[in-house]
Each structure stands twice: as structure tokens, then as C-alpha cells.
């Protein structure tokens, strides 16, 4: 219903006859709601795992292995007689932790780099962006494999590698946003009033690119989850003995025929979280900038 009205407004605008004074309001879109709900569930599960899990994390239980979901073990048990639901809950913690640190590192380095590139138009800005382009040729997985070759696989190596590989995404988006801000009249005014570049960056640029950065963070988070899972699956991330969805998948691969649920459950958890963060990022972008809606 509102969809059709939106169509009418579009058509009228397209014909060059914008209804004067009618500003498109920010409305909550389904992507934002669904994505937000999924993200909230994942975060909720991770938090829950600190106060309650069905069984002690990673505990080998005196029960049958390879149980399918039942009353005692809602999601069954694995080869090592561990409760799957417990592992999923604790695994959510690992996933979010890796994502949070990786995205945090990337944003902390990438955002200032992007602002620097935008505010210093000379060789420095060029250099930053060229360096950025080179770093872009190193995907998270490749970087992590390289580090793992030297230091062995661990959650920390995975986080750092994913973080470094995500820097270019933040630097790019920040730079393009900051370039727009630098052209606005109030920044031009502030510059001619002799405000220091740092002052301008803090007062004007950062608040204005915050939206873009948050959207990028959500999208990068999804990518980080995928990378972490892949690394754990390859045996280069979270080591055995710690709960990780990717690691669960790896361990389940040998028993695909007899116990497919052991692969499907962590697989679904990964896919659902990635979907959640992707949708949340998309929804957030539309919400922050209604003009881009339904692209």
C-alpha cells in the first residue's frame, strides 16, 4: 500500500514535478527489522552463554555420541559426546568476538586513513589510497593463511588478519564520505575561518561519515564471520577444544552420511548470522539514506 504510493511519488518526481515540501520520511524497512532481529538473537545467544548453557562448555558427557536432536540434547551430541546446543551458544560468542575485534581494528585504522586521504589532496592522499589498493589485493583468508604459516593458527591470528584485510573497505567508504563533507559550505567556511584540520575532522567529518561507517561495519561483520568460519574450517583459526561454528563444521565433515545434522546446524548458524548482518547493513543504509531505497 505504501509501496504503491511510493511508486506514485517516484513517478511524479521522475517527471520533473517533485511535490514541493514533501520530504520522504525515514521508515523502518523490512531488511532493517529482520536483520536487526537476527543480529539481536545472535548477540542474545552469545550473552546467554556466559550465564547459562545446557551443559558445561566443551565437556565430554557420559552419553551416546551422534545423537539427533532430542529432549535431553536439543540439538543432539557430536562425535566426542559433547552437547551441540552448548557449542552453538559458546560458538556465537567466538564468532561475535572475532567479528567485533576484527571490525574494530579495521575501523580504528581505516577511518582515520580515509579522512587523511580525503583531507590531504596532495601526494599524501594519493599514497594512502594507492597503499589501500595494494592491501585490497590481500583478502582476509590469504592474509590469515600467511600469518598462520608463521605463527600457527589461532583465534588471535584470525582476528588480526581479518582486521587488516578489512581496513581498505573502511578507508574507501570514509574517504568518499569525507570528500563529500569537505565540499559542503560549512566546512569551507570553517576552513576559511582558520579552523585546524584536526578540528574540522573531529567536528564535521567524523559525525557526517559515522552513518556510512556503521553500515560498513555491519557488512564487514558479515564478511568477518564468513572468514572466521572458513579459517576454523581449514584448521587455521580457532583451535580444537574451543567452540567455533567453523570448527564444528570441520569436525562434522567425516560423518556427513551418518550424522548430517552435525554439519547442518553450525552451517545454518553461520548462514543465518551472515544473513542477519547483511540485511541489517542494507536496511541501515536505506534508513539513513531513503533516496537509495530499493536498489
Amino acid at each position, binding site marked *: 500500500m505504501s509501496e504503491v*504510493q511510493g511508486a506514485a511519488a517516484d513517478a*511524479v518526481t521522475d517527471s*520533473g514535478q517533485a*511535490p*514541493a515540501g514533501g520530504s520522504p520520511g525515514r521508515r523502518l524497512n523490512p531488511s532493517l527489522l529482520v536483520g536487526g532481529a537476527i543480529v539481536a538473537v545472535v548477540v542474545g545467544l552469545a550473552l546467554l552463554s556466559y550465564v547459562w548453557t545446557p551443559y558445561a562448555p566443551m565437556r565430554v558427557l557420559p552419553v551416546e555420541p551422534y545423537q539427533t536432536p532430542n529432549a535431553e540434547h536439543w540439538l543432539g551430541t557430536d562425535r566426542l559426546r559433547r552437547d551441540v546446543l552448548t557449542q552453538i551458544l559458546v560458538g556465537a560468542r567466538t564468532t561475535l568476538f572475532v567479528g567485533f575485534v576484527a571490525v574494530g581494528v579495521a575501523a580504528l585504522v581505516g577511518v582515520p586513513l580515509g579522512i587523511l586521504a580525503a583531507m590531504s589532496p596532495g601526494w599524501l592522499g594519493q599514497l594512502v589510497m594507492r597503499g589501500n589498493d595494494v592491501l585490497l589485493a590481500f583478502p582476509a583468508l590469504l592474509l590469515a593463511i600467511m600469518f598462520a604459516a608463521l605463527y600457527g593458527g589461532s583465534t588471535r591470528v584470525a582476528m588480526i588478519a581479518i582486521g587488516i584485510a578489512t581496513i581498505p573497505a573502511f578507508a574507501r567508504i570514509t574517504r568518499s564520505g569525507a570528500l563529500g563533507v569537505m565540499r559542503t559550505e560549512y566546512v569551507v567556511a570553517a576552513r576559511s575561518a582558520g579552523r585546524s584540520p584536526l578540528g574540522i575532522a573531529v567536528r564535521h567529518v567524523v559525525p557526517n561519515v559515522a552513518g556510512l561507517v556503521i553500515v560498513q561495519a555491519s557488512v564487514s561483520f558479515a564478511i568477518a564471520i564468513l572468514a572466521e568460519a572458513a579459517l576454523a574450517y581449514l584448521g587455521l583459526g580457532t583451535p580444537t577444544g574451543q567452540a567455533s561454528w567453523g570448527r564444528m563444521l570441520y569436525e562434522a565433515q567425516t560423518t556427513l552420511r551418518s550424522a548430517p545434522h552435525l554439519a547442518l546446524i553450525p552451517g545454518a548458524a553461520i548462514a543465518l548470522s551472515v544473513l542477519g548482518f547483511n540485511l541489517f547493513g542494507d536496511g541501515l543504509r536505506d534508513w539513513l539514506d531513503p533516496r537509495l531505497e530499493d536498489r
Partner: protein
Amino acid sequence: MSRAGDRTVLAVEGLDVGTGHTPLLHDVSFAIARGERVGLIGESGSGKSLTALAVMGLLGEGLHARGDVRLSGRTPATRNLLEVGEREMARLRGDAVSMVFQEPMTALNPTMRVGAQVAEVMRIHGTRDTAGARARAVELLDQVGLPDPAHLARSYPHELSGGQRQRVVLAIALANDPALLICDEPTTALDVTVQATVLDLVVRGVQEREAAMLFITHDLAVVATVCERVLVMYGGRIVEAGPVGEVFADPRHRYTQGLIGASDLTGEQGRRGRGALPTIPGTVPPAGRFPDGCVFRSRCAHATDECGTPPGWTPRGGADGRGSAPDEAEEQAGSAPGEAGRAAGYACFHPAGDAA
């Protein structure tokens, strides 16, 4: 329905356009004869472009048109264009009826040479073969005053200026000698210096072909130089119509009066004093938010309770005073008073010029 002679090219009767809920155009009726140049004026948001797109059958998705639109080009107007399918409508577009858009900078395909874009419209309608279309494209580019047309035909749009691009768009529109040319603010986006030249080319183009023209603009001075008759639109309705000279010298509808007052047309009524620049108070409401009854009453200084019902159509210089009884107005709209009746008149309870 009666045709005003064989010379009618476009006849629009009771055209309504809207989404499921929101009416955007209501009871738009007008006709254009062969060789006649008609202006359609009004502020942004009054529905001018929508009218043009409805005639072209190019309304966006979600918009529905009802009413009767007939076009007699090479064939007599036997069918309501709003009822023919897309396939048939496509055969008319670019052939019997064509259109020049407002934004020359974006109207051409950036990845195609301009000569090919002109030739394409002839190829689509089978007017000429490939070689003939290519040669004719160069001729057309020459006709719209482009220098070195043979060379220019091989350029891409981004290599041309706005004025040059608009000439190319005009060449495309005229390529198949249309019976009707619709121009939607063709010079608004151009430099003032090239506006006059392009206008001149448009007028020359339609005169040579004896084509009918519907010219949309908000620039009254342009209407005064280009058109013979004018339709004034507000809130998705035609509120006044008539010969340009008469309407501009003696506007009856309060909206027309306001438009002329706010324009820079010279005239006593346009210059009320140096202090306040005359404008129409308020702004055009967003689509679908126009008041009931007279659409202009929310901005009109003369509005009374009476204006809460839709005013009827009063022929200019016809029966003196008010038209029909207000409550019959809807009925009357349905039974369309005929083009002759609609060619000159207004819809207002308190017309300007009446001794109050």
C-alpha cells in the same frame, strides 16, 4: 464523440491519472489541431509532465490512466490510446507522436554514437534501411543546425554541449515527421543564450511538417512567443484555456492571474509596485494533498465556502457569469462538453475581471 473537423490531431477527453489511492490528474480534456501549437503551463507539481507521459503511454509503473486519448496521424483516430496494448503504442511512439524531454544531458545513451541514436528511430519504424537511415540522420543533424553533421554523427553524447545534445534529441523527435510533437520544458536546462535558437528550431521543425505541438513549460514568456493557445494547469486539472493573447491579457482564473502576476511578462497587472515581488502565496501541495472542490482554494485570496465544491467550466466569452450549478459539475465533467467548449474557458467561481 464529435471531432472538431478533420484537422484534430490529438483529442484528450476526461483523462484521469492516479495510483490506486491518489488521484494525480483529473478530468483533463483538450484537443490540438494540425499545425497548432498549444502551451501547457503551471507550476512544478501541477501535472504537466504527467499529462504528456499519459499521452505517450509512458506512465511509470503503479500509475493508471483512464479516459479517452485519440491521435490521428497518418491513420484516422479510431482507437483510444489508453486501451491499446504496449506493442501497438510502441509503434506510434517515435513515429506519429514523439517527445523532447527536459534534460538533454541525460536523455541520450552515453555509450552510443549520436548518429546511430538518430538513425535508430528510423530503423525501429522501418522508415528507412540502414544506409538510408544513416544518411538521413546526418541530414537531420544538419537541419537542427549542428555544425559539421557528418563528423558530429560519430561523436558520443558526452562530447557535445547541452544545447547540441538537445538538438540531437530534437532531430530524433522529428526524424519520422510526427503528427504530434510533445516538448517537455525543452529549453529549461539550457543556457539562456541558446534557448532562443533551440526554440526557433522547434517551431521551424513543426511548421515545416505541419505537426501539432504540445509545449510544456513554466516560462510564460516562452509560451507567448511559441504558442497560439494555452492551457493552464493546477492540481492535476486544467483550470483555464484559451488563445495566448486573450488569456495573458485577461486571465479569468485566479491561479492564472497569480501566475501572470508572478511572471516577468510585462503588463500592468504584473507590476504592482516595487516593494513586494508578486508571488502566489503558499506552495504547491504534495501530490494527492490538493483540497476538494476548487484545487486552488487553499492558496486563493478569493476563496469562499462555495469553492468547496468543484467549479464548473465556463466558456470564455460565452454565457455570462457562472457556469452550471456546482453540484452538477461532476456530472458535467463526465458528459464532456466537447472540445469546442473546452478550447477557451475557465473553472472558477470568482473569476478575475468580474466586477466583484
